[in-house]
């Protein structure tokens, strides 16, 4: 078969350069994946081409054993060439590539002698599927080893044999779990689940693999036994498992993601179909999914987040410091979350708060979290002790002199923040970064009066810190570029995705959410049903409807935020005042147990819509709006503001903005982000719809009029030139 249509990388080497065949002893062949154009082998066109040739060479000779290994024990290979797959648009090309790989893997499977995969380091997707084609898998027992099939996370499925080889190896339930969660398992767990046959130290990996290949050792594999017949190959059981899995997926995704559903079908049938037939099904599915919009959207988000994780790295003449000691000021929910996160990620952290109960709560929370990780075996006992030791509390603002960075999360008042930074500056070294977790104040103003203001930067985490993946790194007017990059690198170390933004009111995410939430409130006042609007937005792909989100944020916080946006941006952000009668100290959303929804005190009980909402509605115009119109008002108000953000260079570009919307607001990933969604509609259409909304009676009658929906200059320009945000 031919490997046509698989684009070669620009720097692809000569045929034969990517694979080395070594013969360290008679009758043993070791295939080393060592492409010269990559630091970690990728299953790209040149490598597959060379693997094809190497396998052909082995087919023509005799050997007792074959080992397939990476260039180093902890460098096997990193799956398929995502960039190339992203660029392929013709389903037929993908189908052909899949057929080629399936055929190649089947030939490896059929090679004479024992074939052993010697894997280690990250072994995701295609790299693991290559291992599955071997007779035995030996893995390096090392923290860097991570094995799994993450394809469904990217909108495709394990299409190089994963869907049918894995259930044959480990049984249907385990395979289904591995494929649907897309988790990369650590070595020990992979061994326990049967993903690999044997663990050994990285130093011994090749020796042990050779021993197995030559028959000097035979690892025992847990046989599925009767379970194989009664579960994996039993259509009734397989269908039951598939049904359960489908229900779970539907509950989580509302059917917006086709890949997991396809994966369930193919995996469930995997053990019962012939290899050739299963391979064909996988190929068909890949051809369809990988060229579809959801996969492209997910790959684009994945690409931007990978890029964001490289912020501050690989730059010439600049090496971000390794953060070992940090300080956090303020033991509230945010400060505690940040401190705990730092401690878990290896940074010794000291947190200050004047109130002892706040500090106690921080420690309780941290200890609870560490205990949970210990129980789930994410941490060893020794690691858990270190994680505990890395968080210390202080009732006074001293002892911070050794900190490399101090992040403040004290009260949102300019004078308070300025004063703590000025106080701190006397104590810490001159190169200690002073970061503010402010969400509404200007970083530039906070830096005023602080010695060496170029080290003052914003580091805006979202609540809850543990779960929210985005960090806005805010560059004040005086912030040094290096400082922003170092803080971004720290965010990556903390397991977060950083986006560097300019110091404008609301920064990026809250500036976009402001008009969205305000619009939701206006719809409510004009008679829309919160439950219905929330359902609409869930269907649109948001993780939470706007009213539920308002309750989560807190009605008082939301009001405060919209007020400061109004001050900064003028009439287009004039906030709706209609909510005032509803807002009271005991009705501020989730934290008080009641907002748009009523939150029962019992654990796990679901919230319900508050019964008295109609009392606060004064209009009925929203009831006449269609579902599409409601979605448009909410989403396009964000698109319009996003367009202005791009005009004002608030973020580096459209890619970063989309990343922030997906990671910061949970904006439907299958759309690819806010601006990808806008591009899908087309600038002309967006402008037309915005003008339509602006012209509608109720909007024109608002204070501030239709300013909010006047299409932004960039949008108009794009519409005129028939461009998109991503094709500009």
């Amino acid at each position: 078969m031919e490997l046509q249509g698989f684009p070669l990388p620009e720097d692809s080497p000569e045929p034969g350069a990517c694979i080395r065949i070594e013969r360290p002893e008679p009758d043993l062949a070791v295939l080393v994946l060592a492409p010269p154009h990559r630091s970690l082998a990728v299953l790209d066109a040149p490598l597959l081409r060379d693997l094809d040739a190497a396998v052909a060479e082995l087919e023509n000779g005799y050997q007792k054993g074959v080992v397939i290994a990476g260039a180093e024990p902890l460098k096997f290979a990193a799956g398929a060439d995502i960039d190339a797959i992203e660029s392929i648009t013709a389903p037929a090309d993908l189908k052909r590539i899949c057929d080629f790989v399936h055929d190649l893997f089947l030939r490896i499977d059929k090679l004479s002698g024992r074939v052993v995969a010697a894997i280690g380091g990250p072994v995701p997707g295609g790299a693991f599927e290559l291992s599955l084609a071997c007779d035995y898998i030996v893995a390096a027992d090392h923290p860097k080893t991570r094995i799994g099939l993450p394809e469904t996370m990217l909108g495709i499925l394990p299409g190089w044999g994963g869907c049918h080889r894995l259930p044959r190896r480990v049984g249907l339930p385990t395979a289904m779990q591995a494929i649907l969660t897309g988790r990369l398992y650590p070595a020990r767990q992979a061994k326990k689940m049967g993903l690999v046959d044997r663990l050994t130290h990285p130093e011994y990996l090749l020796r042990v693999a050779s021993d197995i290949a030559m028959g000097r050792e035979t690892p025992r594999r847990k046989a599925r036994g009767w379970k194989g017949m009664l579960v994996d190959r039993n259509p009734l059981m397989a269908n039951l498992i598939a049904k359960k899995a489908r229900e779970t997926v539907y509950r989580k995704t509302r059917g917006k993601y086709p890949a997991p559903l396809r994966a369930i079908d193919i995996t469930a049938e995997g053990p019962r179909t012939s290899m050739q037939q299963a391979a064909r099904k996988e190929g068909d599915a890949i051809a369809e999914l990988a060229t579809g919009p959801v996969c492209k959207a997910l790959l684009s988000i994945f690409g931007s987040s990978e890029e964001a994780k490289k912020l501050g790295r690989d730059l010439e003449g600049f090496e971000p410091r390794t953060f070992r000691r940090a300080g956090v000021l303020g033991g509230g929910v945010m400060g505690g979350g940040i401190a705990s996160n730092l401690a878990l990620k290896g940074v010794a952290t000291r947190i200050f708060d004047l109130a002892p109960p706040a500090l106690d709560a921080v420690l309780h929370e941290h200890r609870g979290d560490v205990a949970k990780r210990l129980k789930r075996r994410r941490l060893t006992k020794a690691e858990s002790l270190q994680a505990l030791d890395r968080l210390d509390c202080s009732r006074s603002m001293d002892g911070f002199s050794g900190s490399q960075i101090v992040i403040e999360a004290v009260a949102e008042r300019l004078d308070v923040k300025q004063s703590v930074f000025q106080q701190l500056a006397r104590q810490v070294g001159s190169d200690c970064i002073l970061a503010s977790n402010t969400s509404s104040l200007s970083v530039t103003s906070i830096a005023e009066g602080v010695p060496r203001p170029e080290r003052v930067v914003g580091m805006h985490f979202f609540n809850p810190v543990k779960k929210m993946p985005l960090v806005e790194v805010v560059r004040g007017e005086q912030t040094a570029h290096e400082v922003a990059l170092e803080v971004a690198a720290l965010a990556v170390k903390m397991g977060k995705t950083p986006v560097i933004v300019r110091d404008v009111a609301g920064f990026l995410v809250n500036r976009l959410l402001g008009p969205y939430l305000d619009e939701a409130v206006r719809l409510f006042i004009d008679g829309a049903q919160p439950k219905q609007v929330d359902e609409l937005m869930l269907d649109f792909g948001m993780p939470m409807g706007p009213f539920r989100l308002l309750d989560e944020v807190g009605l008082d916080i939301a009001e405060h935020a919209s007020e400061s946006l109004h001050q900064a941006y003028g009439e287009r952000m004039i906030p709706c005042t209609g909510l005032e009668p509803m807002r009271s100290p005991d009705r501020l959303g989730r934290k008080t147990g009641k907002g748009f929804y009523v939150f029962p005190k019992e654990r796990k009980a679901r919230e319900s819509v508050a019964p008295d909402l109609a009392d606060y509605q004064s209009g009925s115009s929203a009831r006449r709006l269609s579902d599409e119109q409601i979605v448009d008002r909410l989403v396009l108000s964000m698109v319009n503001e996003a367009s202005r953000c791009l005009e004002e260079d608030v973020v580096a570009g459209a890619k970063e903005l989309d990343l922030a919307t997906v990671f910061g607001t949970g904006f439907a990933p299958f759309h690819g982000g806010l601006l990808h969604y806008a591009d899908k509609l087309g600038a002309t259409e967006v402008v037309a719809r915005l003008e339509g909304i602006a012209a509608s009676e109720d909007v024109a009658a608002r204070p501030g009029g239709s300013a909010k929906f006047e299409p932004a200059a960039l949008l108009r320009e794009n519409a005129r030139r028939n461009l998109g945000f991503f094709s500009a």
Partner: protein
Amino acid sequence: MLAYNLLDDGPDIVLAAGLRSPWVRAGSAFRYEDAGHLGARVARELIARSGIDPAEIDEVIAGCVGPPHDQANIGRVIALRAGVPQAVPARTVARNCASGIEAVTSAVANIRAGFGTTYLTLGVEVMSAYPLIMGHRLTGFFERLMKARSLGARLKGIASFRPSMLKPRVALLEGLTDPVSGLIMGKTAELVARDFGLTREQCDGFALRSHERALAAQERGRFQAEILPHLPQRARKSAGAVDADDGPRSDQSMERLGRLKPYFDKPDGVVTVGNACGITDGAAALLVTTAERCAELGLKPMARLRSFAWSGCDPARMGLGPVYSSALALDAAGCRLDDIGTVEINEAFAAQVLGCARAFESASWAERHLNRSHAVGELDLARTNVNGGAIALGHPVGATGARLLLTAAHELEVGDHELALATLCIGGGQGGAVVLERVA
């Protein structure tokens, strides 16, 4: 007998900084605490507050009587958990109740020998964690079971079980018993009481005063500068951080003390649980360095060391150890007991402290035991343990020595004294004493 005079040539050595955890009754708030964890917490905080780079520390020395079985060299565990770099060595020293002072005097001797300048020393003891030990018979039973291969041998092994095998050995009690004299510590105090004719009322009176002084000190906030609040491991959500010693009883009275029965010598003894020190958990850390280095580090020293002494005595009357060692330390420091502004003497037992007071002022006792013609001097109880002592605060054995030095050093400043004496008795028949001097 060993006495070291620090007035002689050599660098001045100071206590540069110090801190301790609250002293907490064993089996209560620190019940699930671990000595390594607690010690490291205090050490880490001392490093942070003093602002020194932990790489500047030459060695970490921890005093501990009963380290947890999985942390034999607990000094090293504490050093690493406190963030002291791996390259810095650490060790554990023991001299029973004086282990916390032993850590300091070991550091001093090292510095004077030209062996480093900066030492992080600790005293740490979590007596809550002292285990119950399986007896030999139960151990033998398990051995037989493990060795048994055939079914018959196994059954025979199982059949050899007797319920009486389950009786454990209590590490705490065995630890507090001197194997040479065969006496548990309380009995050595009874001997002292009989030697000097001390009465139950005298002992109870001393105990009551210890509580009163400790409570008054707490009210003044006297301990705030030395105590680091600590949220114990596995603390309940509703429980906050412990920020004060929990030993002093506001409801203590002669009447209540009088109701207690003698614990060690029934029915005629004078030592009760009320006039003896408690079983306690705690950790204290001190930064020991030269005056010069201290200035370089930008720290204001708490006190300068003037002399220290170790001496042995009759294990059956170990409580009198402070008299032996104080006499030596005072001589080495070139001063008399009258010159000392404030004394911290460990209150293992009221009878033992009162016995020391008698021995200090007795010329005949000095002649018989110290081979000197005159008495050591009068121990003025008004200037002794002015903030209460171990009877009220508790006595985490390995940590107490460090607290005596810490409290004495603070008292120099608080009470405006020139000299302070910290001394304690040591199980097995020893005494230790340190003379501290205020830094101008």
